[in-house]
């Protein structure tokens, strides 16, 4: 990849005076326990946060936990076995959705293998493996019952409910498993399965699964917006450049909002409906920072975080006054990434977006 960094675009005139404290205050580490945590999503009333964390000594993989801001207590709501990811509260119900591999009979074996690897003291680069056994489930907090919403072979995850709780938009790699692949495709699957990921929509009970995208490259990180559209991140075929897109829930009116020529992903709408926050490695391949972009994608995105190391997966609170995000800024025991919480200055965000220049096109 030719790193698409043009130094001049990092700060264009009016933005040069901005810093992290312009938008974020009282930044603090929220999760402390365990090796890593991330993907914190708020309950609709803002009183709780659901997130994934590696904190069970017997299971080295992510499980899903709900943190209660009033009591400080955290409880696991996923099965405890296998890998999980990407949880989301269902509005107007007591259900929480998440991706999980717990039905895979080999789950325990994988856990033990990973624990043995970690005990050996060896290290390897962290990588998410797009387990083809990953399906979407919803657990009812009241009854404790878990129901399976997807069954297709291939990674199903990265889902979000619609504001009325009736629909789920998600990402699936089923296209790599439900047909005969060409030799080139087979090779691609072995190299990087995420290439096959596309956006799907279904009813909250799992019925009516419909595909919304059909092009090369990883489509995922899907969420509904307040006005019923879908925001997600689309990777180009090379797997290195990604951008934030929006579309209608029937797949029409696909619109690209960012164009850094870098890896821009994990978009989430601010509840004002005025802008999206997202993460990008525009400033360095390993250095993800949080940015925001106006709803129409007309302006050059504005940088929000200014701290070395990974900052990403930003999620504003339902009242728009706080932002949860995943960061490696803590160093030490938290260097693998933990969830942080900050006060969010919406007024400053609006002013900065207003002052931003028109969207630029990267040199390629």
């Amino acid at each position: 990849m030719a790193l698409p960094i043009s130094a001049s675009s990092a700060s264009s005139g009016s933005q040069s005076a901005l810093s992290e404290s312009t938008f974020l205050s009282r930044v603090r580490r929220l999760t402390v326990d365990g090796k890593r945590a991330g993907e914190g999503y708020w309950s609709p009333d803002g009183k709780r946060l659901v997130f994934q964390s590696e904190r069970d000594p017997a299971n080295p993989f992510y499980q899903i936990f709900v943190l209660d801001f009033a009591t400080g207590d955290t409880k696991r709501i996923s099965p405890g076995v296998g890998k999980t990811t990407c949880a989301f509260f269902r509005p107007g119900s007591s259900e929480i959705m998440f991706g999980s591999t717990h039905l895979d009979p080999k789950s325990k074996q994988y856990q033990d293998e990973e624990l043995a690897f970690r005990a050996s003291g060896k290290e390897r680069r962290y990588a998410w493996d797009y387990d083809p056994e990953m399906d979407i489930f919803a657990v009812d907090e009241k009854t404790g019952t878990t129901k399976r919403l997807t069954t297709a072979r291939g990674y199903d995850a990265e889902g979000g409910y619609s504001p009325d709780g009736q629909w789920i938009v998600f990402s699936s790699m089923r296209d790599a498993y439900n047909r005969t692949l060409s030799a080139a495709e087979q090779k691609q699957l072995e190299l990087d399965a995420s290439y096959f990921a596309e956006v799907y929509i279904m009813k909250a009970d799992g019925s009516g699964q419909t595909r919304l995208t059909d092009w090369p490259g990883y489509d995922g990180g899907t969420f509904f917006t307040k006005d019923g559209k879908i925001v997600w991140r689309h990777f180009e075929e090379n797997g290195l450049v990604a951008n934030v897109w929006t579309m209608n829930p029937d797949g029409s009116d696909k619109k690209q909002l960012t164009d850094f020529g870098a890896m821009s992903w994990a978009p989430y709408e601010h509840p004002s409906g005025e802008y999206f926050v997202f993460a990008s490695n525009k400033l360095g391949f390993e250095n993800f920072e949080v940015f925001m972009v106006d709803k129409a994608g007309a302006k050059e995105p504005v940088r929000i975080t200014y701290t070395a190391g990974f900052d990403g997966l930003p999620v504003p609170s339902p009242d728009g006054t706080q932002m949860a995000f995943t960061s490696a800024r803590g160093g030490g025991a938290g260097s693998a990434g933990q969830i942080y919480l900050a006060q969010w200055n919406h007024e400053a965000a609006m002013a900065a977006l207003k002052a931003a220049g028109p969207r630029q096109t990267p040199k390629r």
Partner: protein
Amino acid sequence: MTNTKHVVVAMAAACLVASTPVFSQTATSSRTRTHVETLASDKFEGRLTGSPGEKLAADYIISELKRMGARPLPGLTDFRLPFTFTAGSKDGGTTLAITKAGSAPQLFSGATTVQALSFSDSAETSGAIVMAGYGLVVPESQNFGYDSYAGLDVKDKIVVVFRYFPEDADQQTRAILARYADLRYKAQAARQRGAKGMLVVTGPRSPNAGAVVPMSFDTAIAGSGLVAASISSEAFAPIMAASGKSLEAVQKEFDSGNPHVAGFAIPDVTVTLKANVIRQQQTGNNVVGYLPATAPLTGVNKPWVAVGAHYDHLGRGTTGGSLAGKDEANQIHHGADDNASGSATVLAIGDAFSQQPRKRHLLLAFWSGEELGLLGSNAFVTKPPFPLEQMSAYLNFDMVGRVAGNKLTVQATGTSAMWPRLLEQANIAAGFDLVLQEDPYQPTDVGSFNTASVACLTFFTGAHQEYHKPSDTADKINYEDLVRVGELASGVVRRLMDSADVPQFTKVEQKTETGGRAGLRLFTGTIPDYASDVKGLLLGGVIGGGPAEQAGLAKGDVIIEIAGQSITNIYDYTYALELLKIGEPAKVVYMRGSDKRETTLTPSARK
């Protein structure tokens, strides 16, 4: 004192409404300020252990304990738990007589000629002399193979050793030997091999050549079981003459670091060493009380939860530890952050729990003697008033009044697997940007409890420019956030008090073995920031006029390489210092912000 107003406003917005109000915010806040201002006031004269100021501070704390309804420990009638310590030692007139066969003895005395080592027994000893090189013994566990006594018979003899460690050895050898070059360690090695006495001479090829070792501050109550003194080159000359060799030539041989260079007996001469060390014994006072459980303790596992802080400080800085500049020497060291802040926090926790049901006893401890080497807490765990197995946990507060950027460091989290979860829960309401450090080997009272196998934590808001200076005053404390430290700790204490599970103690291995501190003969003038978790060594400050300042280094710089050694943490730095040589410029690579810079630092000799 930044953004305090803002902090209060943000607190209100941060979902705290439904959390248990352990603290009554306003009352606690104003009391905390009063505690700090009182303890750090001129009246208490810097609260030096054993001083009238320490006693006044103890009286104040006791009146506060009584006000909240705390009691002396079960079976005791006083909140004071006294301990004896050595407040200082001086030479009371040490003499050395050298007798050559057939001649009259030559007598040496006077502080610049012969001076007892501070840990010497006060006694007289006579015997033949054995030159034992640098007197270094590297433990077998190090697989290094260096023993200055190999092949030497020193039983009932008096050994002569060089100060420091071989000057010309390669870097790796120096680094290993330096760890065992502390004079106390050398004395121990000599005694274990049966020597009756030890004479130390600073070789002509070393820094401070020919000079006696200054009598260092030493808090040991008794001697080390050996008569030991350092002597000047003048006093050593007649002994050397008897060997028929030159001192410089002998040192040069040992300086190679070659383990096969052997020591030798010096014939035809005996010495009589009469050491006189005057140790000034004093009494310090820990102040310890408790709030008894409000319900029967039947079936409660480990019924004590303990919180503590040292309340002593440096007085006027005359007994060591002071970093005061010349212009402020001998002034009262107020110790507002260190550690009126921690003491006020323990009082605040006591106040909060005095009004609440308690399923366990809450022990409130105020240690003295911390600045002299954890003396008070060490005395407590050595002879505990109740078995420490009954203590479910100990929380320590030392320098917690300087919260900046909402950061709070919690150390010793490796002492129990339960700590990260408890801290996460308690911090949801308190809202600090927590930095966790597993290492319990910290220079504060938590070390005593870790050694005693009690699950423990210590809270810390970082080193600063006023550390150990008279200017560590009450007006520089961030009171709003200091109160929040108490809130967070109370949240942890609440959970410890109520929980059926207690934290299981886990032993954390010490990262480096340190035999001694001889590496510290060298002075760089850097003040490491021990709270930092950055890669490299973050400077909390530099000492005015010292080599680091002269090299252009400043607070906030991060040293990433020194003398070709890459530095990722404080341990690397300590190790690298042992490789430096006095007066020899060393390249330092450091980060200032995101700027990578280079400079040259020339270490000077520590006196």
